[in-house]
C-alpha cells in the first residue's frame, strides 16, 4: 500500500482542534461548578480535572487501542497501540491525512470530556475516591468500546449509523451513564424539596462560553481535515446553538415568566449536543430547526427528574442524553447528501426513506442501554465497597471540606470573598436555613427588617 502523504494544513487544524476540545473540560468544570452549592464547587471541578488526568493516561496505555485498534465488531485490538511505543508518525487514513499521533491526541480529548460529563449527576455528594475508580472502570468498559462501535469500525459503524462528532458515542453515552448513577446512588439531602439553586450563575455562563468555543474543535475538527465539510460543520454548530438558546428561553418565558441566563447557557449546551452528530450532514436551515426544537424539548425534559424521582443533579440526562438522542435521530430525518456526498446519510425529509432513521435509533438506543446497565452495575459495586457518595452528615458539612480540605470562598471574614459576593448582590448561599453555607454568626443570625 502506498504511503499516504501527511497534509500539514489538516494536521495544523487537528492540533488546534485538539486543544479546543481539551478546553471544553475546564469549561464544563465551570459550567457544572456554578450549578452546585458554594460548598461543593471544588469537588465538582475536581471531577472534570481528574478526568483529564486519568483518561489521558488510560488512552496511551490501552484506550486508543480498544477504541481505534483493528475491530472485531465490539472492541479494537488492545495490543495495537498499547503504551504508544509504536511508530505513529504515519498518516491515519486517506480521509484524515494527519499523523496517527495527532489523530490519537484529538480523540483523547473526546474520551476525557465524555467521562467528565457524567460527573454532573453526582453534584454536592461525590466521594472522590469512588469517582476515580468509576472513571477508570467506565472509560475502560464503556467509552473505549463504544467509540470502537461508533467510529472504530465496530458494529454500529458497519451497520451504517452515522455520528459525525459524538452524539451517540459522547452525549447519549455519558447521559445514560449519569442516569444509571442517579438511579442507584443516594439523593442529595432533602432532594427534591431542598434548595438546590445554582450558587454562581456567572460561572455557569463562563463555562458555557468556553464549551461553545471549544465545541468548534469538537465538531469542525471531527472532519479530520481543514476543508469545506469542516466549514459546514462549523457553521451548523453556530446556528443550531444560537437557535437552541432561543428555543430554551421561549419555553422559560412562557412557562416561568422570565428568561434566565442559566436557561440561555443550558440552551446553548443542548443545541451544541444536538448538532454534534449531524453537523456535517444538514443544511444551516435544518440546523436552526434542530436547535429550536432541541432547546425547547430539553428545557421541558429537565423537569423529568422531579416526576420520575432520580436526582440527576445537573441535568446530564435532560440535556446530554435527550439532546444527543434528538441529534442522532435527526440524521434520519434531515440529513442531506448535498455537502457530504453519497458517502453520507440521506434523511427521510430528503427522500431517504425510514431505513436511516431505524439505523440511527438502533445505534443510539443500544449505546444508551449498554452504558446505563454498566453504569448501574459499577455505581452499585463501588458504592457498596469504597462508596460513591459521602454520608449525609458530610454533605451537610460540605463536600469540598470533607473530601478535599479546601473551600472556594471565604465566608468567615467580613471583608473576605463572601463579603465581595454579598456586596455585588449575590447571596453567598442558597438562602434557606437548610441550605445556608457557613457564614459569620454576626451576619447569618441577624433578622433585619426589610
Amino acid at each position, binding site marked *: 500500500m502506498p504511503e499516504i502523504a501527511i497534509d500539514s494544513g489538516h494536521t495544523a487544524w487537528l492540533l488546534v482542534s485538539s486543544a479546543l476540545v481539551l478546553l471544553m473540560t475546564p469549561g464544563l468544570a465551570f459550567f457544572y461548578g456554578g450549578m452546585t452549592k458554594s460548598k461543593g464547587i471544588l469537588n465538582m471541578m475536581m471531577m472534570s480535572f481528574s478526568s483529564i488526568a486519568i483518561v489521558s493516561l488510560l488512552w496511551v496505555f490501552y484506550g486508543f487501542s480498544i477504541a481505534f485498534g483493528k475491530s472485531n465488531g465490539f472492541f479494537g485490538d488492545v495490543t495495537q497501540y498499547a503504551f504508544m511505543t509504536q511508530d505513529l508518525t504515519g498518516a491515519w487514513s486517506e480521509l484524515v491525512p494527519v499523523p496517527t499521533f495527532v489523530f490519537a491526541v484529538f480523540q483523547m480529548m473526546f474520551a476525557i470530556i465524555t467521562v467528565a460529563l457524567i460527573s454532573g449527576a453526582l453534584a454536592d455528594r461525590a466521594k472522590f475516591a469512588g469517582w476515580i475508580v468509576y472513571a477508570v472502570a467506565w472509560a475502560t468498559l464503556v467509552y473505549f468500546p463504544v467509540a470502537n462501535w461508533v467510529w472504530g469500525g465496530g458494529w454500529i459503524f458497519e451497520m451504517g449509523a452515522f455520528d459525525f462528532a459524538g452524539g451517540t458515542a459522547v452525549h447519549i453515552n455519558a447521559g445514560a451513564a449519569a442516569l444509571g448513577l442517579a438511579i442507584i446512588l443516594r439523593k442529595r439531602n432533602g432532594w*427534591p424539596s431542598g*434548595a*438546590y*439553586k*445554582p450558587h454562581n450563575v456567572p460561572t455557569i455562563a463562563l463555562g458555557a462560553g468556553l464549551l461553545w468555543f471549544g465545541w468548534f474543535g469538537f465538531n469542525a475538527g471531527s472532519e479530520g481535515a481543514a476543508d469545506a465539510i469542516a466549514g459546514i460543520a462549523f457553521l451548523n454548530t453556530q446556528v443550531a446553538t444560537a437557535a437552541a438558546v432561543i428555543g430554551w428561553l421561549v419555553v*422559560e418565558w412562557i*412557562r*416561568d*415568566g*422570565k428568561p*434566565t441566563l*442559566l*436557561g440561555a447557557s*443550558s440552551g446553548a449546551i443542548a443545541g451544541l449536543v444536538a448538532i454534534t452528530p449531524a453537523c456535517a450532514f444538514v443544511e444551516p436551515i435544518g440546523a436552526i430547526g434542530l436547535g429550536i426544537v432541541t432547546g425547547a424539548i430539553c*428545557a421541558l425534559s*429537565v*423537569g423529568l427528574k*422531579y416526576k420520575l424521582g432520580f436526582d440527576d443533579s445537573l*441535568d446530564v440526562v435532560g440535556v446530554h442524553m435527550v439532546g444527543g438522542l434528538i441529534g442522532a435521530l435527526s440524521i434520519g430525518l434531515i440529513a442531506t447528501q448535498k455537502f457530504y456526498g453519497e458517502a453520507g446519510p440521506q434523511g427521510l425529509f430528503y427522500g431517504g426513506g425510514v431505513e436511516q432513521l431505524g439505523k440511527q435509533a438502533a445505534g443510539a438506543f443500544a449505546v444508551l442501554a449498554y452504558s446505563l446497565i454498566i453504569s448501574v452495575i459499577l455505581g452499585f459495586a463501588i458504592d457498596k465497597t469504597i462508596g460513591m457518595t459521602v454520608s449525609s452528615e458530610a454533605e451537610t458539612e460540605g463536600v469540598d471540606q470533607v473530601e478535599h480540605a479546601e473551600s472556594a470562598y471565604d465566608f468567615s471574614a*467580613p471583608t473576605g470573598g*463572601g*463579603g465581595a459576593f*454579598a*456586596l*455585588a*448582590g*449575590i*447571596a*453567598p448561599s*442558597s*438562602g*434557606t*436555613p437548610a441550605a*445556608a453555607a457557613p457564614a459569620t454568626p*454576626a*451576619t*447569618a443570625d*441577624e*433578622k*433585619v*427588617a*426589610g
Partner: protein
Amino acid sequence: MKLVTAVIKPYQLDAVKEALHALGVAGLTVSEVQGYGRQKGHTEVYRGAEYTVEFLPKIRVEVLTDEIDVEKVVDAVVTAARTGKIGDGKVWVTSVDDVIRVRTGERGLDAL
C-alpha cells in the same frame, strides 16, 4: 447624640454614601446582613424549579450624629436608598449615651 441605623438594598449603598458625604458626615459603619421584612423574601426559578429565598442580602449602615443633624441624616439616607419598590429597607434612630474616640479619649460631641 443619636445613632441612625439603616438597612438598605446592597445596590443603594453607593448612593447613600454619597448623600451622607455631601452632608459632611465624617464616618459611617457598613455591614452585610441578611433578613426579610413584610415581603418574606422572593422566589427564583432555575431550570423550571422554584426556590424560595427567604433571607435576602442587605446592607446595614450606621451613622453617629448629633441631635441637631439627625433629621438631615435620616432624610439623606431615606431619599438615597429609595427605589420605590418593595424591600427598600428601614431606618431607625436610637439615643446614644456617650461616644469615645479611641485614639484620643475625647468624649461626646468632640468624638464624633
